[in-house]
């Protein structure tokens, strides 16, 4: 099913992007900002500058992908052998950090000695790899490097520096630069010396122009000195690194060289091509995985050897692949509504289809295994709706659930509400005697929601959201009652679960929900998750936190696209269609 023609979509996106005059909030149940720090709509000031773009380091994924692509001239076996040899030096390059301050690895701005040490080690190993044999040298540098004619070696080296330099720097080298790399780094007179090639390769791969996204732009916007259009090469790099997480391909470089990327038509054409490339789906997978923190899912084997957990899990005792399978299940849902159906954001939260492609997850859902193609099987009626009810979002590696943590995830990650550190943390204690045969919810209520307790104000923001998914146990199985086991695995009691709550998605909203299905509907109706999702995609794309004033137009266009039921595909591509994508505002 395709709801739009690709060319038509891009034309429309580019047209709307160029207008830059979106300012009217959509009508809807949420009519105004819930909180100034977490608005439901974004204000677009026509003509406002985009926020400044800081230089970013290539992420480790981008860095490794680029290294692989730089080996394109070699046969596959040689490429793989060289990439394998890079495992050890790549180990020196630190993993990108994603933490409370950095939602996405693209936001990691840190530089360290390990980066530089690693880049050097990678450069040397890469250089050694491409010059290891005569065949590799010939393929990488050119046949002139290994033929019998030493008279052509000087020109051969120049041509290599120009060609490889352009790939590594993602732009043509100037004549001065070619001369620099030839005279100062290669520095060999006479027959071609592979050691000089190694040095050139190392120097280029150590250059900040390789390991950072450095943009100098072309013509300034009229009347401005700090706002300018990107060059065609810089546009090519933005497109490729955003959608492919790697360097531009030959066609993008050609479009940069011939100026096509600096025209509306040429840009639209390349944007469409880049977006339709299968590598884009991998990059979008990366966004979804980081958005839902799927890399942080718990080790589901943690308790599998214990009698109480075994009694709890029964036939569903997780195997070694369970963790990966539940991550894949959530990814499958998002992939399906992004690529297979041109689905929208709302469907992600309301879908009653199962995307489990493995028997363990299918058993949890009580449905047949989905082949990965065609129409997925429907979930049992009334049990689940969309993302919030998938195993990856409700399961943990315990025999009990964690309503507080589930609620915190929804509150912070899906609704973008900030959570402040409560005061008096050291003095939080409860004096309530509670019964031993209580549900998890009752226990959490008793411990965190006593009237006047210091912890209750914060937990009031978290717990109700988490309670709604208490109809799924620690393995994500649907339930109407919670089974309580002792340490030996004996069933102590079965207590009913209560999934009703007042989730207060919008501040002060007292509308109750009966369960996660109603919560999902309320969440979709609120518009708050849409605005939050727009902010997250913005962060992934730009590698920085949004500035509501400067980035309002981009955010609002993204949000409107989501709220209006536009497809996820449309939303994913429209950020690149915005004029801001081809501009750079210089910071102070």
């Amino acid at each position, binding site marked *: 099913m395709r709801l739009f023609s690709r060319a038509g979509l891009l034309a429309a996106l580019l047209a709307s992007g160029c207008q830059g005059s979106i300012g009217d909030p959509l009508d809807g149940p949420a009519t105004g900002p819930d909180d100034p720090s977490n608005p439901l709509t974004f204000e677009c000031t026509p003509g406002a500058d985009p926020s400044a773009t800081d230089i970013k380091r290539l992420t480790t994924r981008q860095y490794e992908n680029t290294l692989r692509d730089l080996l394109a001239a070699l046969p596959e076996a040689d490429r793989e052998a060289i990439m394998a040899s890079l495992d050890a030096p790549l180990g020196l390059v630190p993993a990108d950090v994603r933490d409370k301050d950095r939602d996405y690895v693209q936001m990691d701005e*840190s530089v360290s000695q*390990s980066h530089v040490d690693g880049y050097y080690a990678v450069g040397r190993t890469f250089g050694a790899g491409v010059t290891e044999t005569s065949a590799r040298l010939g393929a990488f540098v050119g046949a002139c490097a290994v033929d019998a004619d030493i008279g052509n070696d000087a020109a051969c080296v120049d041509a290599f520096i120009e060609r490889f330099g352009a790939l590594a720097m993602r732009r043509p080298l100037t004549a001065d630069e070619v001369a620099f790399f030839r005279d100062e780094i290669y520095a060999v007179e006479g027959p071609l010396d592979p050691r000089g090639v190694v*040095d050139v390769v190392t*120097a280029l791969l150590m250059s900040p122009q390789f390991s950072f996204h450095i943009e100098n732009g072309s013509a300034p916007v009229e009347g401005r000195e700090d706002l300018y259009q990107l060059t065609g090469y810089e546009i090519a790099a933005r497109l490729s690194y955003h959608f492919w997480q790697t360097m531009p391909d030959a066609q993008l470089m050609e479009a940069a060289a011939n100026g096509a990327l600096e025209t509306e038509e040429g840009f639209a054409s390349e944007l469409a091509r880049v977006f339709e490339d299968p590598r884009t789906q991998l990059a979008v997978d990366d966004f979804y995985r980081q958005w839902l923190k799927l890399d942080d899912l718990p080790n589901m084997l943690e308790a599998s050897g214990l009698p109480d957990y075994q009694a709890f899990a029964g036939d569903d005792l997780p195997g070694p692949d369970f963790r990966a399978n539940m991550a894949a299940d959530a990814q499958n849902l998002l992939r399906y509504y992004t690529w297979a159906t041109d689905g929208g954001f709302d469907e992600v939260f309301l879908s009653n289809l199962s995307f489990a492609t493995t028997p363990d997850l299918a058993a949890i859902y009580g449905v047949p295994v989905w082949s990965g193609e065609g129409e997925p099987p429907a979930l049992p009626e009334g049990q689940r709706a969309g993302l919030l009810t998938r195993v990856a979002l409700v399961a943990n590696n315990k025999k009990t659930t964690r309503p507080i943590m589930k609620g915190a995830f929804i509150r912070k990650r899906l609704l973008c509400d900030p959570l402040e550190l409560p005061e008096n943390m050291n003095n939080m204690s409860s004096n309530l005697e509670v019964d031993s045969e209580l549900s998890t919810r009752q226990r959490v209520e008793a411990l965190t929601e006593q009237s006047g307790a210091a912890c209750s104000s914060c937990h009031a923001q978290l717990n109700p959201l988490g309670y709604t998914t208490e109809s799924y146990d620690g393995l994500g199985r649907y339930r109407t009652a919670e089974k309580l086991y002792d340490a030996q695995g004996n069933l102590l009691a079965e207590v009913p679960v209560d999934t009703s709550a007042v989730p207060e998605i919008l501040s002060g909203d007292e509308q109750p929900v009966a369960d996660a299905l109603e919560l999902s509907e309320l969440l979709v109706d609120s518009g708050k998750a849409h605005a939050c999702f727009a902010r997250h995609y913005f962060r992934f794309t730009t590698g920085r936190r949004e500035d509501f004033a400067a980035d309002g137009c981009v955010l609002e266009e993204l949000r409107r696209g989501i709220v209006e039921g536009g497809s996820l595909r449309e939303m994913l591509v429209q950020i690149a269609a915005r004029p801001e994508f081809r501009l750079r505002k210089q910071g102070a």
Partner: protein
Amino acid sequence: MTKVRRINRRHFLVGAGGVTLAIPFLSSLEEKKAFAGAPPYAQNPRFVCMATPHGGVWNQHMWPDEATAAQARQVYPGHQMHWGELAPATSGGTTSLSACLSAPSTSLTASLISKMNVIRGLDYSFYLGHHRGGILGDVGNNNDEAPRFERVPTIDQVMAWSPSFYPDIANIKLRSMHVSRGYDGLSSTYANPVDKTGPVNQIPAVESALLLFQQIFVPPPEAEENPRPLIVDKVHEHYRRLHAGQFGDAKRLSSKDKQLLEAHMERLYELDRKLNVTASCGDVQPPTDDAHIWDPVDSIQSAAQWFQIYNDVIVAAFMCGTSRIAVIGASDELWKAAPFAGDWHQQIAHVGGGGVPINDPDGAANRPAWQDILVGTQREFFANVFLDLCNKLEQVEESDGITFLDNSLVMWSQESGNRTHDNVSTPVITAGSAAGFFNTGRYLDFRNRQNTLFGSSAEPASDSYRPGVLYNQWLANALRANNVQPEEFERNDKRGYGEYEVFDLWSGVDPYQLWPDHLRDGASDLLPELVKGV
């Protein structure tokens, strides 16, 4: 334990997993002058910090018998500290200073105990919660949603980039070594530590023990015909020309961009320096296995082997003279004796650690058992990592009667004190005298036992819950022990190291009465009975 005599000029460390490091005695070390103590202590000590998360080891399990610290000494007006010689008990092949500080008698020897200190009464003067940076002074590296503290370099990095700690870096290949499994980000420094500019970032841990070894090891030089010069300086030159606009680029960089690139390029100088290190590691052989052969680390034994391989490399680096700082972080959960079906963080660390409500019947019933599990994890780390490294350093004599351990300060601390999230009496266990700077073999209790302001509702009085001196003062003492003086480490006209502004999070208790101003005023001062001659 038989020490390796320098006359042998060669020492084999038999490490984990059959790894053998053949380490020669370095004759250059013979020439070092004494620093704090009488000759022949090394002029410049080495510093190792180990850290484990949570803490939450109850007072009665963490500390030696209070009677051990029977001697009193005024440390501040109205504030006496207590101290005494460590008095181990041995039973059934186990030697104990406390329930937590217990190990096989073959590891926790009388000799080693005489070189240890157990330090109590070091407080963060504010609620800190979960953190990584506090142990080495960067309390801003914590789990706060909204930042409360300025990020600052950790003290290991103050040392690493200090000419006082490294007056001669010609042989230093790695200013500091960073090892972590489950407790990352203990160390932080500026993006540009030379100029002390740019954001303060966590320092990543090394990915493998073999990689760490390669970073500290100087292989014998290979003869090469017409060797080519290193090109690192050329990379810098290319950047310089870019920056100057010679190649038509880089003319539109913001100050932040320039700072980032300068920080990156500054590191090239350090790389160039390291590539030119010509120190010899003699017969040191690389480990035959990497620590990852013990993956998955799912038992105390595999965790011990994993860390002990890194300990071997750290000792090798010290003996090669190519690094003098190491930081090791280890999850407490690695050291559990058996799988745990419940919620480790909530139940073991918080209920077992006693930092959250305990009225949950399950929690109340299980709290002692969960505390035992928690104590067990910290004890196993102590026995298998801390003591392992200390004993390896103690095995090698650096000069007459002085071992590598003597010339080092090895410290182990935990994220919290008596209760998880507790900022009072964060444990510090040390070994080595920092080249004669510290007295050793002591239980040093800096709590002001007369200050009873903590309410009994917060903790039973029997837990002797009393405020001590600021943890900042300990950090200052660690720095001073390593030749870094207050004029070099004090910041913003504050004494001590790091942040100690009091944030009033202790309902009903005036934090300025718990930690009066004189503690802040004296936060760079040497701690009595810890530092020799003070």
